[in-house]
Protein backbone atom coordinates (compact mmCIF):
# COMPACT_ATOMS: atom_id res chain seq x y z
CA UNK A 1 0.00 0.00 0.00
CA UNK A 2 1.24 3.46 -0.88
CA UNK A 3 0.88 6.53 1.30
CA UNK A 4 -1.82 8.79 -0.18
CA UNK A 5 0.19 11.84 0.92
CA UNK A 6 3.80 11.13 -0.05
CA UNK A 7 3.60 7.84 -2.02
CA UNK A 8 6.13 6.02 0.18
CA UNK A 9 5.31 2.41 1.08
CA UNK A 10 3.14 1.88 4.16
CA UNK A 11 3.90 -0.84 6.67
CA UNK A 12 1.37 -2.67 8.80
CA UNK A 13 1.76 -2.81 12.56
CA UNK A 14 -0.38 -4.63 15.06
CA UNK A 15 -1.17 -2.43 18.00
CA UNK A 16 -3.11 -4.26 20.69
CA UNK A 17 -4.86 -6.31 18.08
CA UNK A 18 -5.63 -3.36 15.80
CA UNK A 19 -3.92 -3.36 12.41
CA UNK A 20 -2.66 0.08 11.54
CA UNK A 21 -0.64 1.19 8.54
CA UNK A 22 2.20 3.64 8.97
CA UNK A 23 4.01 5.39 6.12
CA UNK A 24 7.74 4.67 6.01
CA UNK A 25 8.31 8.13 4.56
CA UNK A 26 6.19 10.75 6.31
CA UNK A 27 5.22 8.54 9.28
CA UNK A 28 1.57 9.29 8.77
CA UNK A 29 -0.90 6.68 9.99
CA UNK A 30 -3.85 5.20 8.08
CA UNK A 31 -6.73 3.68 9.96
CA UNK A 32 -9.33 1.44 8.38
CA UNK A 33 -13.05 1.78 9.11
CA UNK A 34 -13.70 1.10 12.79
CA UNK A 35 -10.05 1.07 13.80
CA UNK A 36 -10.17 4.47 15.45
CA UNK A 37 -13.11 3.27 17.54
CA UNK A 38 -11.23 0.08 18.38
CA UNK A 39 -8.24 2.12 19.54
CA UNK A 40 -10.46 4.43 21.60
CA UNK A 41 -12.07 1.39 23.19
CA UNK A 42 -8.64 -0.01 24.06
CA UNK A 43 -7.60 3.35 25.47
CA UNK A 44 -10.62 3.44 27.80
CA UNK A 45 -9.79 -0.08 28.98
CA UNK A 46 -6.29 1.10 29.75
CA UNK A 47 -7.53 3.84 32.05
CA UNK A 48 -9.51 1.33 34.13
CA UNK A 49 -8.06 0.41 37.56
CA UNK A 50 -6.45 -2.88 36.65
CA UNK A 51 -5.44 -2.83 33.02
CA UNK A 52 -4.17 -6.07 31.58
CA UNK A 53 -0.44 -6.04 30.86
CA UNK A 54 0.17 -5.05 27.27
CA UNK A 55 1.24 -7.85 25.01
CA UNK A 56 3.37 -6.42 22.25
CA UNK A 57 4.69 -9.17 20.02
CA UNK A 58 4.88 -6.69 17.14
CA UNK A 59 5.67 -3.50 18.97
CA UNK A 60 4.84 -0.19 17.37
CA UNK A 61 8.29 1.23 16.75
CA UNK A 62 9.17 3.97 19.19
CA UNK A 63 10.89 7.05 17.78
CA UNK A 64 14.60 7.03 18.53
CA UNK A 65 16.02 9.51 21.00
CA UNK A 66 16.89 12.96 19.69
CA UNK A 67 18.82 15.90 21.15
CA UNK A 68 17.07 18.86 22.75
CA UNK A 69 18.18 21.12 19.89
CA UNK A 70 16.64 18.79 17.30
CA UNK A 71 13.93 19.84 14.90
CA UNK A 72 10.53 20.12 16.57
CA UNK A 73 9.38 16.96 14.76
CA UNK A 74 12.76 15.27 14.69
CA UNK A 75 12.48 11.99 16.50
CA UNK A 76 8.74 12.31 16.92
CA UNK A 77 5.89 11.45 14.67
CA UNK A 78 6.29 14.46 12.44
CA UNK A 79 4.93 14.33 8.98
CA UNK A 80 7.49 16.32 7.04
CA UNK A 81 9.97 13.64 5.97
CA UNK A 82 8.17 12.61 2.83
CA UNK A 83 8.28 15.82 0.89
CA UNK A 84 11.70 16.78 2.12
CA UNK A 85 13.29 13.39 1.88
CA UNK A 86 14.30 13.24 -1.76
CA UNK A 87 15.49 16.82 -1.76
CA UNK A 88 17.68 16.49 1.31
CA UNK A 89 18.90 13.05 0.30
CA UNK A 90 20.68 13.89 -2.94
CA UNK A 91 21.39 17.47 -1.96
CA UNK A 92 22.74 17.22 1.57
CA UNK A 93 23.64 13.64 2.40
CA UNK A 94 26.34 13.41 -0.25
CA UNK A 95 28.52 16.39 0.56
CA UNK A 96 31.06 17.39 3.16
Amino acid at each position, binding site marked *: MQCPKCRAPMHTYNRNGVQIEQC*SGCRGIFLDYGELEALTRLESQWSQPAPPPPAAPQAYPAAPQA*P*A*WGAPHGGHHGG*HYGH*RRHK*SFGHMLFSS
Partner: protein
Amino acid sequence: MTPNPLLPALTARARAAAHARTSGCPCGATVTLADRPDATVVRHADTVAKAHAPDLTPADLSPRLTAAARLPGLLLPPLSPTPVDLHGRLVSFWPHGTPVDPTDPDAAPWEAAATLLARLHRTPAPVPLPPMRGPAKAALALARLRTTADGTDLAAGTTAVLRAWDTLPAWARAEAPQPDTTTLCHGDLHLGQLVRHPAPDGSWLLIDVDDLGVGVPAWDLGRPAAWYACGLLPPDEWSRFLAAYRAAGGPAVPADGDPWPALDIPARALAVQTAARAITKALAEERLLDEVEQSLVDACDRMAAVPPELAHGYAK
Protein backbone atom coordinates in the same frame (compact mmCIF):
# COMPACT_ATOMS: atom_id res chain seq x y z
CA MET B 1 33.95 29.70 -15.35
CA THR B 2 37.65 29.40 -16.12
CA PRO B 3 38.54 25.81 -16.88
CA ASN B 4 40.84 24.29 -14.29
CA PRO B 5 44.33 24.13 -15.90
CA LEU B 6 45.02 21.03 -13.83
CA LEU B 7 42.31 19.03 -15.61
CA PRO B 8 44.12 18.21 -18.91
CA ALA B 9 47.25 17.08 -17.06
CA LEU B 10 45.26 15.01 -14.58
CA THR B 11 43.24 13.49 -17.44
CA ALA B 12 46.47 12.47 -19.20
CA ARG B 13 47.75 10.87 -16.01
CA ALA B 14 44.50 8.96 -15.47
CA ARG B 15 44.63 7.65 -19.06
CA ALA B 16 48.24 6.58 -18.68
CA ALA B 17 47.53 4.86 -15.36
CA ALA B 18 44.47 3.09 -16.83
CA HIS B 19 46.44 1.90 -19.86
CA ALA B 20 49.23 0.61 -17.61
CA ARG B 21 46.66 -1.60 -15.85
CA THR B 22 44.88 -3.06 -18.89
CA SER B 23 46.12 -3.64 -22.39
CA GLY B 24 42.64 -3.70 -23.89
CA CYS B 25 41.31 -0.35 -22.64
CA PRO B 26 38.02 0.45 -24.38
CA CYS B 27 39.32 4.03 -24.20
CA GLY B 28 36.15 6.01 -23.85
CA ALA B 29 36.12 9.56 -22.62
CA THR B 30 37.75 10.58 -19.36
CA VAL B 31 35.02 11.74 -16.99
CA THR B 32 35.43 14.51 -14.42
CA LEU B 33 33.90 13.22 -11.18
CA ALA B 34 34.67 16.30 -9.06
CA ASP B 35 36.35 19.64 -9.65
CA ARG B 36 36.44 21.70 -6.47
CA PRO B 37 39.13 23.90 -4.92
CA ASP B 38 40.05 21.10 -2.51
CA ALA B 39 39.96 18.17 -4.93
CA THR B 40 39.84 17.35 -8.63
CA VAL B 41 38.89 13.77 -9.48
CA VAL B 42 38.78 12.20 -12.96
CA ARG B 43 38.05 8.68 -14.16
CA HIS B 44 39.32 6.85 -17.23
CA ALA B 45 37.91 3.34 -17.68
CA ASP B 46 38.43 1.56 -14.33
CA THR B 47 41.05 4.01 -12.99
CA VAL B 48 40.41 7.15 -10.93
CA ALA B 49 42.99 9.91 -10.40
CA LYS B 50 42.56 12.41 -7.59
CA ALA B 51 44.46 15.68 -7.23
CA HIS B 52 44.34 16.44 -3.52
CA ALA B 53 43.97 19.83 -1.81
CA PRO B 54 46.80 22.28 -2.64
CA ASP B 55 47.90 22.54 0.99
CA LEU B 56 48.14 18.78 1.57
CA THR B 57 51.76 17.67 2.06
CA PRO B 58 53.26 14.21 1.46
CA ALA B 59 53.62 13.89 5.24
CA ASP B 60 49.83 14.41 5.53
CA LEU B 61 48.85 12.12 2.68
CA SER B 62 51.37 9.26 2.52
CA PRO B 63 50.55 7.60 5.86
CA ARG B 64 46.85 7.85 5.03
CA LEU B 65 47.36 6.15 1.66
CA THR B 66 49.45 3.47 3.37
CA ALA B 67 46.69 2.91 5.93
CA ALA B 68 44.16 2.46 3.09
CA ALA B 69 46.50 0.02 1.35
CA ARG B 70 46.77 -2.04 4.55
CA LEU B 71 43.04 -2.14 5.36
CA PRO B 72 41.59 -3.50 2.11
CA GLY B 73 38.34 -4.77 3.64
CA LEU B 74 37.49 -1.35 5.05
CA LEU B 75 38.98 1.24 2.75
CA LEU B 76 39.34 1.18 -1.02
CA PRO B 77 43.04 0.44 -1.54
CA PRO B 78 44.98 2.89 -3.72
CA LEU B 79 46.78 1.58 -6.80
CA SER B 80 49.98 2.85 -5.18
CA PRO B 81 50.57 4.08 -1.63
CA THR B 82 52.91 6.80 -2.94
CA PRO B 83 51.33 9.98 -4.34
CA VAL B 84 52.90 11.69 -7.37
CA ASP B 85 53.41 15.43 -7.83
CA LEU B 86 51.54 17.14 -10.66
CA HIS B 87 52.01 20.91 -11.01
CA GLY B 88 52.49 21.18 -7.24
CA ARG B 89 49.44 19.04 -6.40
CA LEU B 90 49.66 15.56 -4.94
CA VAL B 91 47.87 12.97 -7.08
CA SER B 92 46.79 9.47 -6.06
CA PHE B 93 45.37 6.66 -8.21
CA TRP B 94 42.49 4.36 -7.33
CA PRO B 95 40.40 1.60 -8.85
CA HIS B 96 36.92 2.71 -9.88
CA GLY B 97 34.06 1.69 -7.56
CA THR B 98 30.29 2.11 -7.92
CA PRO B 99 29.00 4.97 -5.73
CA VAL B 100 25.72 5.24 -3.81
CA ASP B 101 22.84 6.33 -6.06
CA PRO B 102 21.88 9.86 -4.95
CA THR B 103 18.45 9.51 -6.56
CA ASP B 104 17.39 6.41 -4.64
CA PRO B 105 17.06 7.01 -0.87
CA ASP B 106 15.63 3.52 -0.35
CA ALA B 107 18.86 1.94 -1.61
CA ALA B 108 21.18 3.90 0.70
CA PRO B 109 23.52 1.41 2.40
CA TRP B 110 23.02 2.60 5.99
CA GLU B 111 23.89 -0.77 7.52
CA ALA B 112 27.02 -1.16 5.41
CA ALA B 113 28.16 2.37 6.26
CA ALA B 114 27.63 1.80 9.98
CA THR B 115 29.30 -1.61 9.96
CA LEU B 116 32.34 -0.27 8.09
CA LEU B 117 32.66 2.57 10.59
CA ALA B 118 32.34 0.23 13.58
CA ARG B 119 35.03 -2.05 12.15
CA LEU B 120 37.26 0.92 11.31
CA HIS B 121 36.89 2.28 14.85
CA ARG B 122 37.84 -1.12 16.28
CA THR B 123 40.92 -1.48 14.08
CA PRO B 124 44.27 -0.25 15.43
CA ALA B 125 45.88 2.31 13.10
CA PRO B 126 48.19 0.22 10.89
CA VAL B 127 50.75 3.07 10.71
CA PRO B 128 51.15 6.17 12.89
CA LEU B 129 48.57 8.66 11.66
CA PRO B 130 47.95 12.37 12.24
CA PRO B 131 44.77 13.45 14.02
CA MET B 132 41.49 12.92 12.18
CA ARG B 133 40.78 16.23 10.46
CA GLY B 134 37.04 16.61 11.13
CA PRO B 135 37.29 19.40 13.70
CA ALA B 136 39.92 21.21 11.58
CA LYS B 137 37.60 21.10 8.57
CA ALA B 138 34.72 22.44 10.65
CA ALA B 139 36.93 25.30 11.89
CA LEU B 140 37.87 26.05 8.28
CA ALA B 141 34.20 26.25 7.27
CA LEU B 142 33.56 28.71 10.11
CA ALA B 143 36.60 30.80 9.14
CA ARG B 144 35.31 30.99 5.55
CA LEU B 145 31.87 32.00 6.75
CA ARG B 146 33.36 34.82 8.86
CA THR B 147 35.39 36.06 5.88
CA THR B 148 32.47 35.86 3.47
CA ALA B 149 29.90 37.40 5.79
CA ASP B 150 32.30 40.09 7.01
CA GLY B 151 31.76 43.56 5.62
CA THR B 152 28.31 42.78 4.32
CA ASP B 153 25.35 42.83 6.63
CA LEU B 154 25.67 39.62 8.54
CA ALA B 155 23.71 37.24 6.35
CA ALA B 156 20.60 35.77 7.85
CA GLY B 157 21.53 32.83 10.00
CA THR B 158 25.21 33.74 10.37
CA THR B 159 24.75 34.98 13.92
CA ALA B 160 22.98 31.76 14.91
CA VAL B 161 25.73 29.64 13.35
CA LEU B 162 28.52 31.59 15.08
CA ARG B 163 26.73 31.42 18.43
CA ALA B 164 26.19 27.67 18.11
CA TRP B 165 29.90 27.26 17.25
CA ASP B 166 30.79 29.11 20.44
CA THR B 167 28.88 26.55 22.54
CA LEU B 168 31.27 23.79 21.40
CA PRO B 169 34.25 22.63 23.47
CA ALA B 170 37.74 23.59 22.27
CA TRP B 171 38.58 20.18 20.79
CA ALA B 172 35.53 20.25 18.51
CA ARG B 173 36.68 23.66 17.21
CA ALA B 174 40.22 22.32 16.57
CA GLU B 175 41.55 24.64 19.27
CA ALA B 176 42.72 21.75 21.50
CA PRO B 177 43.71 18.12 20.88
CA GLN B 178 40.84 15.66 20.60
CA PRO B 179 40.21 13.72 23.81
CA ASP B 180 40.83 10.45 21.93
CA THR B 181 44.23 10.13 20.23
CA THR B 182 44.19 6.44 19.33
CA THR B 183 40.91 5.47 17.64
CA LEU B 184 41.06 5.22 13.86
CA CYS B 185 38.41 7.49 12.28
CA HIS B 186 37.37 8.34 8.73
CA GLY B 187 36.87 12.03 9.46
CA ASP B 188 34.46 12.98 6.64
CA LEU B 189 31.69 10.41 6.46
CA HIS B 190 28.76 11.03 4.13
CA LEU B 191 27.04 8.91 1.52
CA GLY B 192 29.46 10.04 -1.18
CA GLN B 193 32.23 8.26 0.72
CA LEU B 194 31.10 4.72 -0.04
CA VAL B 195 31.67 2.67 -3.18
CA ARG B 196 31.14 -0.92 -4.19
CA HIS B 197 34.38 -2.54 -5.31
CA PRO B 198 34.84 -4.39 -7.55
CA ALA B 199 32.20 -2.44 -9.48
CA PRO B 200 29.30 -2.83 -9.81
CA ASP B 201 28.31 -5.20 -7.01
CA GLY B 202 31.36 -5.88 -4.83
CA SER B 203 31.50 -5.07 -1.11
CA TRP B 204 30.91 -1.55 0.12
CA LEU B 205 34.16 0.21 1.07
CA LEU B 206 35.01 3.64 2.43
CA ILE B 207 36.84 6.08 0.16
CA ASP B 208 38.60 9.44 0.61
CA VAL B 209 41.40 9.16 3.15
CA ASP B 210 42.25 12.88 3.20
CA ASP B 211 40.78 13.35 6.68
CA LEU B 212 41.52 9.85 8.02
CA GLY B 213 43.32 9.80 11.34
CA VAL B 214 43.08 9.17 15.05
CA GLY B 215 40.44 10.94 17.08
CA VAL B 216 36.94 10.88 18.53
CA PRO B 217 35.03 8.13 16.68
CA ALA B 218 31.62 9.69 17.36
CA TRP B 219 32.64 12.34 14.82
CA ASP B 220 32.05 9.76 12.08
CA LEU B 221 28.46 9.28 13.31
CA GLY B 222 27.98 13.02 13.68
CA ARG B 223 26.65 13.74 10.19
CA PRO B 224 23.89 11.10 10.16
CA ALA B 225 23.09 12.13 13.76
CA ALA B 226 22.85 15.78 12.74
CA TRP B 227 20.72 14.94 9.67
CA TYR B 228 18.35 13.00 11.89
CA ALA B 229 18.24 15.73 14.53
CA CYS B 230 17.54 18.37 11.87
CA GLY B 231 14.70 16.31 10.41
CA LEU B 232 16.54 15.45 7.18
CA LEU B 233 16.99 11.73 7.87
CA PRO B 234 13.84 9.75 8.77
CA PRO B 235 13.84 8.09 12.21
CA ASP B 236 13.80 4.55 10.82
CA GLU B 237 16.90 5.13 8.69
CA TRP B 238 18.74 6.68 11.63
CA SER B 239 17.66 3.72 13.79
CA ARG B 240 18.95 1.26 11.22
CA PHE B 241 22.29 3.04 11.02
CA LEU B 242 22.70 3.25 14.79
CA ALA B 243 21.59 -0.36 15.37
CA ALA B 244 24.02 -1.68 12.76
CA TYR B 245 26.86 0.32 14.31
CA ARG B 246 26.07 -1.12 17.72
CA ALA B 247 25.61 -4.65 16.36
CA ALA B 248 29.11 -4.46 14.88
CA GLY B 249 30.54 -3.46 18.26
CA GLY B 250 31.30 0.14 17.36
CA PRO B 251 32.92 1.93 20.33
CA ALA B 252 31.70 5.49 19.68
CA VAL B 253 28.42 5.06 21.56
CA PRO B 254 27.40 2.82 24.48
CA ALA B 255 26.03 -0.58 23.43
CA ASP B 256 22.54 0.41 24.57
CA GLY B 257 20.70 3.30 26.16
CA ASP B 258 20.79 6.92 25.07
CA PRO B 259 23.54 7.50 22.47
CA TRP B 260 23.20 11.29 22.56
CA PRO B 261 25.63 12.06 25.39
CA ALA B 262 28.33 10.68 23.05
CA LEU B 263 26.86 12.09 19.83
CA ASP B 264 25.82 15.55 20.95
CA ILE B 265 29.09 17.43 20.38
CA PRO B 266 29.99 15.89 17.00
CA ALA B 267 26.40 16.23 15.75
CA ARG B 268 26.30 19.88 16.80
CA ALA B 269 29.70 20.55 15.23
CA LEU B 270 28.72 18.94 11.93
CA ALA B 271 25.34 20.69 11.81
CA VAL B 272 27.15 24.00 12.43
CA GLN B 273 29.77 23.20 9.77
CA THR B 274 27.11 22.26 7.24
CA ALA B 275 25.09 25.38 8.02
CA ALA B 276 28.22 27.54 7.68
CA ARG B 277 28.99 26.04 4.28
CA ALA B 278 25.40 26.50 3.17
CA ILE B 279 25.39 30.20 4.07
CA THR B 280 28.81 30.77 2.48
CA LYS B 281 27.59 29.10 -0.71
CA ALA B 282 24.28 30.98 -0.74
CA LEU B 283 26.11 34.31 -0.29
CA ALA B 284 28.46 33.48 -3.17
CA GLU B 285 25.49 32.59 -5.37
CA GLU B 286 23.49 35.61 -4.15
CA ARG B 287 20.49 33.54 -3.21
CA LEU B 288 18.45 32.69 -0.13
CA LEU B 289 18.87 29.45 1.78
CA ASP B 290 16.68 26.62 0.59
CA GLU B 291 14.43 24.64 2.92
CA VAL B 292 17.01 21.96 3.70
CA GLU B 293 19.77 24.49 4.41
CA GLN B 294 17.42 26.52 6.57
CA SER B 295 16.67 23.47 8.73
CA LEU B 296 20.37 23.34 9.68
CA VAL B 297 20.48 27.04 10.53
CA ASP B 298 17.32 26.63 12.60
CA ALA B 299 19.03 23.83 14.55
CA CYS B 300 21.99 26.16 15.23
CA ASP B 301 19.54 28.73 16.54
CA ARG B 302 18.14 26.19 19.02
CA MET B 303 21.60 24.95 20.06
CA ALA B 304 22.58 28.23 21.65
CA ALA B 305 19.64 27.85 24.04
CA VAL B 306 20.59 24.29 25.04
CA PRO B 307 24.24 24.03 26.07
CA PRO B 308 26.10 20.80 25.27
CA GLU B 309 25.63 17.99 27.71
CA LEU B 310 28.62 19.02 29.76
CA ALA B 311 28.14 16.26 32.27
CA HIS B 312 28.73 13.57 29.68
CA GLY B 313 31.49 12.06 27.65
CA TYR B 314 33.87 14.25 25.77
CA ALA B 315 32.39 17.67 26.52
CA LYS B 316 35.42 19.07 28.23
